[in-house]
């Protein structure tokens, strides 16, 4: 299992390095920028004059932009959930099935490694990679001199729901990659669901009819910057439970499937192929 863990991190090293550098620079920049916004109550008054639809789409955090929680929510936690979420979905769907599609897994699984050890070795590698990206970001916000005035624990709190959300979508992508005919299909579907959910949350602020619907979507239970002072442990546990269930289902499915070397298995749509032939 350790060999697979090491291999997973090594395999992701380029991607990981890029993300760590990018997110560090962004976090340092945004943390430094806070001082020029803090206390600018006039800015909030100015924003109140913006079209109502724009303000509604971004939610209440727009009006709290001069406060640490509102600022962090608007400039980091609000859309990092989508940006790093897409990365998590891409990593999740590629974790096993991408190697399977390339034919690499055929040889790896001929070694004395159980399917469980392979699965969990790579899963731990995936979780560690996400944790490293978030830790770097947290550390950058923490050490950059600014007047945010948050303790390390207060700053850590919103990273917990973010991590849970990333695990939720990463494990969903992993499960979908076990069920759908290709890793790309799984990644596209999972990334699409995440982006659609993000847009739906924004639109629900403008349309009351959507509010009932969004309660059934995972992003509704993602707190973002609000978690700094009031972390909802039930919502956090719910997201983590979802991630655990998806992971266990993916593991169960991986135990039972034939390892493909290309061309075998997959879905066939006979009706569609007949239609195309005509």
């Amino acid at each position: 299992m350790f060999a697979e863990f090491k291999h997973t991190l090594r395999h992701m090293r380029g991607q990981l390095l890029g993300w760590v550098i990018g997110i560090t620079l962004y976090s340092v920049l945004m943390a430094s920028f806070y001082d020029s916004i803090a206390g600018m109550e006039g800015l909030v008054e100015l924003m109140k004059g913006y079209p109502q639809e724009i303000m509604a789409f971004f939610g209440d955090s727009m009006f709290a932009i001069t406060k640490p929680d509102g600022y962090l929510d608007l400039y980091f936690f609000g859309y990092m959930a989508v940006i790093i979420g897409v990365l998590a979905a891409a990593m999740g769907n590629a974790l096993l099935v991408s190697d399977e599609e390339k034919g690499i897994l055929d040889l790896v699984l001929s070694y004395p490694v159980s399917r469980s050890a392979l699965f969990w070795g790579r899963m731990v590698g995936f979780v560690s990679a996400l944790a490293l990206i978030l830790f770097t970001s947290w550390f950058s916000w923490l050490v950059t001199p600014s007047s945010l005035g948050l303790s390390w624990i207060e700053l850590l709190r919103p990273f917990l729901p973010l991590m849970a959300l990333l695990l939720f979508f990463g494990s969903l992508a992993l499960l979908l990659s076990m069920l759908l005919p290709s890793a790309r299909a799984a990644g596209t579907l999972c990334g699409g669901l995440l982006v659609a959910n993000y847009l739906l949350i924004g639109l629900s602020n403008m349309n009351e009819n959507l509010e009932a619907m969004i309660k059934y979507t995972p992003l509704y239970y993602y707190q973002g910057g609000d978690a700094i002072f009031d972390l909802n442990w039930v919502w956090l546990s719910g997201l983590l439970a979802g991630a655990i269930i998806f992971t266990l289902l993916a593991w169960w499915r991986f135990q039972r499937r034939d390892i493909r070397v290309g061309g075998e298995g997959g879905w066939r749509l006979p009706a569609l192929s007949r239609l195309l032939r005509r």
Partner: protein
Amino acid sequence: MKDNVALWARGLTKSYGKIQALRGIDLEVRRGEIFGFLGPNGAGKTTAIRCMLDLIRPQGGTLRVLGFDPQADPVAVRARTGYLPGELHMEDSYKVKDQLRYYKDLRSNHIDWDFVQQLARRLDLDLAMPIKNLSKGNKQKVGIVQALMSRPELLLMDEPTSGLDPLMQHEVYRMLREAQAEGATVFFSSHIISEVEILAERVAIIRQGIIVEEADPHRLMEMSLRRIRVRFSETIDSTPLAEIEGVTLLSLNKGTSAHLQVEGEMDGLIKALGAYRVRDIKIERPSLEDIFLTYYKDEDKEEEIN
């Protein structure tokens, strides 16, 4: 199942949707032998090998590898087996040595790195080369090194010399014989008949997911059709020759030269020829290729009938 059996299969079946890749394979490979698995593309060779490593699950039948059930204890099977897939894919971003170190890690470091280097030298393989820059033949060499490097009890090799030049092919044959001398069982699939003829002690011919023949290559040749040209010193009556069991008279030239086809043992014909004054006799032995083609010509005929 006896203790000296490395591979044992009874009624092994595997389907991919409507396609039946294996239709009840019966197989027995003894420990320490080099066994050739002969068949054209799509006959079921790779499917059978992948079942042995629990990469795919058969739908029916019983399979034992080195005494273990691959589905119940795949790690025990894999710990004792070296595998070379028919289509070899590796991490393009790795160098050869990194790839082999990764495989070494997967075997919990139970690998002698000096032996790995020795194998690489014999195959003229540069360990510092990135995988993505390797030719097909050089990738195949990496595959052979990784299969042999753990000195496994069983070698499962799918087309082992695919992409190698003749010199390297013979080096691989030597390596496999050395592995056998150290006690390993070698099970390899091929559609190159000369390779099977050179290397295998026993051979199974697979056709449409069923093993149609299993014997040692020489016995297979002995059992098969032979063509015999006999020149007589005088004009003969060929009727008694044509009546011998397994003998077919193909042609009789001016009553002094007969072209015969014999299936099975030669004894009946030799005894019958004792009654004539024979000037010359010429036996045309079939190659393994002729035998192989005989099976597949039969298959084509059956397909046409179906």
